[in-house]
């Protein structure tokens, strides 16, 4: 089917943009951190819908996976560690110099936007030079239907390697700052373990939640693998799949407790997996080097390419390389996310009454 840009989509774009503005102002003005976290989730919901209306489906997918699921949960987990009294808002002082700077910058940006190419214009720099070359070369070079995957994992494989290392470094930083979170495992004073002791919560029943979650968690994990292995044909890929898998583990921890989650998916696995994922990515590149090519030059992954060999619809060395690095990405991202969640959630068993 041919894509076309209808007026209704234009209206949808405008309304969604307006919603983003309203949400931003509300986030600035609200004092309740819970409300702000929730509106942050809504913000990413709206922007993902907007990205899809603009045909940027892979970006939309990432926004959907990261913004709505992981960041809400991690923000809440971070609230375990913050000061729990919101500061009273200070009276606004009139500062003219910053206001002038901000207005000048804004005016400059608005002025610059006049020179931007028309939306969807074929002459836009993004569509004219390197983007066009990728679109023309992908079918013969790589042969994956989703060009985004080809660009991400093959043409710009080195950049993606850098991104994976950045994610890994972020996980290491979280561990260095706040520990492994295994303190929670050792803590024996979990509330809920001994129901009779805690009268406030003794008549809570979560039977429905438990039964439904038992059904949902495996489906979410399966969907993560679908997103991963279908990444060459549809939006999605390693990053998104890793995040979705981490969400499945988080849901398990939310319903059945952190201890059960740490038994099902030990923190040691998560830490080792983060390193192994990056190593898989790097090894894929090194195998290419051993076979005589450049780093991440997938044409050499099975050995030097045969001159003049005709390949059909699929260029198998390229696709093997892409799958190899995507496996590395999915393992690394999922394990880093789970590590960060364990670190935050396991840092403090619970907030005491005097701190709440």
């Amino acid at each position: 089917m041919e894509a076309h840009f209808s007026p209704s989509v234009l209206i949808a774009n405008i309304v969604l943009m307006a919603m983003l503005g309203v949400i931003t102002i509300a986030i600035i003005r609200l004092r309740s951190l819970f409300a702000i976290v929730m509106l942050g989730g809504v913000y990413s919901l709206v922007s993902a819908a907007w990205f899809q209306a603009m045909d940027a489906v892979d970006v939309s997918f990432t926004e959907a996976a990261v913004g709505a699921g992981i960041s809400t949960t991690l923000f809440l987990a971070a609230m375990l560690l913050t000061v729990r009294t919101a500061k009273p808002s200070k009276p606004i002082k009139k500062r003219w110099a910053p206001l002038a700077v901000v207005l000048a910058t804004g005016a400059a940006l608005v002025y610059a936007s006049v020179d931007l190419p028309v939306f969807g214009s074929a002459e836009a720099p993004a569509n004219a030079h390197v983007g066009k070359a990728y679109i023309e070369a992908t079918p013969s070079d790589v042969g994956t239907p989703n060009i985004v995957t080809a660009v991400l994992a093959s043409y710009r494989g080195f950049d993606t390697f850098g991104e994976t290392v950045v994610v890994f470094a972020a996980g290491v930083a979280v561990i260095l700052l706040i520990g492994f979170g295994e303190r929670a495992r050792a803590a024996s004073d979990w509330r809920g373990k001994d129901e009779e002791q805690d009268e406030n919560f003794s008549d809570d029943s979560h039977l429905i939640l438990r039964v439904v979650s038992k059904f949902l968690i495996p489906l979410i994990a399966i969907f993560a693998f679908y997103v991963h292995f279908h990444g060459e044909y549809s939006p999605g890929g390693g990053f998104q799949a890793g995040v979705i898998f981490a969400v499945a583990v988080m849901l398990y921890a939310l319903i059945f407790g952190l201890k059960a989650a740490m038994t099902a998916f030990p923190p040691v696995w998560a830490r080792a997996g983060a390193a192994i994922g990056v190593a898989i990515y790097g090894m894929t590149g090194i195998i290419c080097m051993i076979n005589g090519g450049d780093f991440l030059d997938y044409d050499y992954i099975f050995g030097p390419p045969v001159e003049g060999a005709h390949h059909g619809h699929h260029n198998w060395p390229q696709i093997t390389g892409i799958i190899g690095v995507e496996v590395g990405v999915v393992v690394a991202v999922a394990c880093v996310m789970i590590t960060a969640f364990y670190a935050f959630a396991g840092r403090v068993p619970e907030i005491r009454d005097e701190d709440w």
Partner: protein
Amino acid sequence: MADTSLFSPENLEAARVFVGSALALTGAVFSAAGSIGVLRFPDFYTRMHSASVTDTLGATLVLFGLMLIGGWSLVSFKLLCIWIFFMFTSPTASNAAANGAMKAGLEPFLGKWTGQKIKIEGQEALRAQEDRE
């Protein structure tokens, strides 16, 4: 040679798309009506009633309408998956929210709503608790 009967393939095709669109539109209108209820009803439990009932019915109509338009394809299968997911998650989330609100001490508003600002027991305490966070 053209099949001119009422049930010719072309007519059936057009009817399928029309019925699908009509179902989807009905569902969207249900959703919008539910949202008006969420905005206008006086307390949390009535708002939840409005939101959860129209969520499931509206989503069902919309998704089945889109399935009719999509025909027998992977798209329809994905829509079916979304629908199954909704049928599990949406009532469960509503149940969890209502359960949590009730246990936290938010009392349902009972009586006649006269239009002016009403006092709901537990609301102020919950709000204070939220603001402290």
